[in-house]
């Protein structure tokens, strides 16, 4: 942990130079892996329906140049074990940005939380207690976090984790 790089100044990027945060720029530069063994790299793509000359529609992953409420995004995280040792108990936790909701066609087996990470499970097993005390089943819009657990990553192995989201 003593090699952890702390660049707290990054907060001020938003505050003082907002033009640097353009929607057109997906940010793929990797975070240096603190221990040199595992690397996490996040990215985001927009899902656009594109009609070809014949009028047939297909979906395509495009850079999120232009996104508005209702649009679909795919958040991805690439991981790679670049060390010489196997990595175990690998758990990736991803809080959902508050401006999006989990898409309803997300993997039903995905482990999610609807209470800011306090409890976890498949969405179908979770419930929400309303202010008036009534309890209802949790929906995709209630999801606050998603989580993936990988028991072991062999040296040199890598993979990708994704979740689809809709802009609220």
């Amino acid at each position, binding site marked *: 942990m003593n090699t952890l790089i702390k660049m707290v100044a990054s907060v001020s990027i938003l505050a003082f130079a907002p033009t640097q945060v353009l929607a057109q720029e997906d940010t793929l530069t990797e975070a240096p892996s603190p221990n040199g063994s595992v690397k996490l790299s996040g990215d985001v793509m927009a899902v656009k329906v594109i009609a070809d000359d014949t009028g047939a529609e297909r979906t395509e992953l495009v850079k999120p140049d232009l996104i508005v409420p209702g649009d679909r995004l795919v958040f991805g995280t690439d991981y790679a074990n670049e060390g010489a040792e196997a*990595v175990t108990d690998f758990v990736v936790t991803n809080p959902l940005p508050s401006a999006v909701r989990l898409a309803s066609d997300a993997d039903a087996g995905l482990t999610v939380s609807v209470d800011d990470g306090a409890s976890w499970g498949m969405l179908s097993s979770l419930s929400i207690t309303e202010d008036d005390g009534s309890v209802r089943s949790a929906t995709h819009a209630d999801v606050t976090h998603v989580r993936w657990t990988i028991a072991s990553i062999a040296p040199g192995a890598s993979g990708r984790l994704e979740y689809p989201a809709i802009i*609220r």
Partner: protein
Amino acid sequence: MNTHTIIRHLAIGSAVALCAIASPAFADGVDAGTLIENTATATFDAGDGPQTIESNTVVVRVDELLDVTVTSLDAGAIGATPGEAVLTFEVTNTGNGPEAFTLTPNTAVAGNDFEVLVESIAVDTNGNGVYDPGVDEILTAPQALEPLAADEAVTVFVIVTVPDSVTDGQQTNVELIAEAATGTGAPGDTFAGQGVDGGDAIVGTTGASATATGAIQVGLTSVDLTKSASIVDPFGGESAVPGSIVTFTIVAEVSGSGSVSDLVVADIIPDGTTYVTGSLALDGNPLTDAAGDDAGEASDADGIAVDLGSVSAPATQSISFNVTID
């Protein structure tokens, strides 16, 4: 890949808190300019105990959706007579960012029986839903609303003049067109860099333009009075001789499609005759001669008067009274 990198390395543990963005209005889509930031965190064991690492943060900004609706707030056609008439509309910014809208009235709608003249467009400044001259702000040309926040609605009045040449029952429609000041077009058309915070603006499903129609129906009302007399002489005949009783009947006919207010029917007692006390009647029902206790009053000196008040057309009312020939 076109990378303009934002790397945000922060002390682990504060990551969750930093992901929380200012809570935008979710009522009708997140606000334009909202930053969507996503960061994943991984914990694992590489043989020497649990470790935590964090991914880079990806940031996308929500662009501005240009959408607008206009609705007529009038319940059907408003009744009008030659002169001023006021049509009421509501303009709503259904986009997700602050946007100004230009307003254009159109009086030349196909099928109109006549055309009105637009005097002005006013904003319901005091929010009471009724046009208050001198209070509600009159928009000056080009008529543009101050920017409305996302989901904000404003009531707008179109003040028109109905020409003198109209006839009863004629109708006309007035359209109010609201267009996003940034621009209009087909859904999906974009205006690069013209959205909130330098983001793009994109035309939404409404085409960033909306039209509503208000209707005016001319309600002209006329009042016709028809007076007739019948005579009964003391001998059972119909001669006008001293002592004969003359019954005057005044039929007030209110025609057209509007209404009249403060309708008072009055008549004098002819020279050489004397009012028969207690003979005044409205639609066959007796009225007293005294003033103030009912709609009628009558006296030999001042004649008769019946206050019919407000009468909606069509209506017919009959007033009768008797005199004796001196």
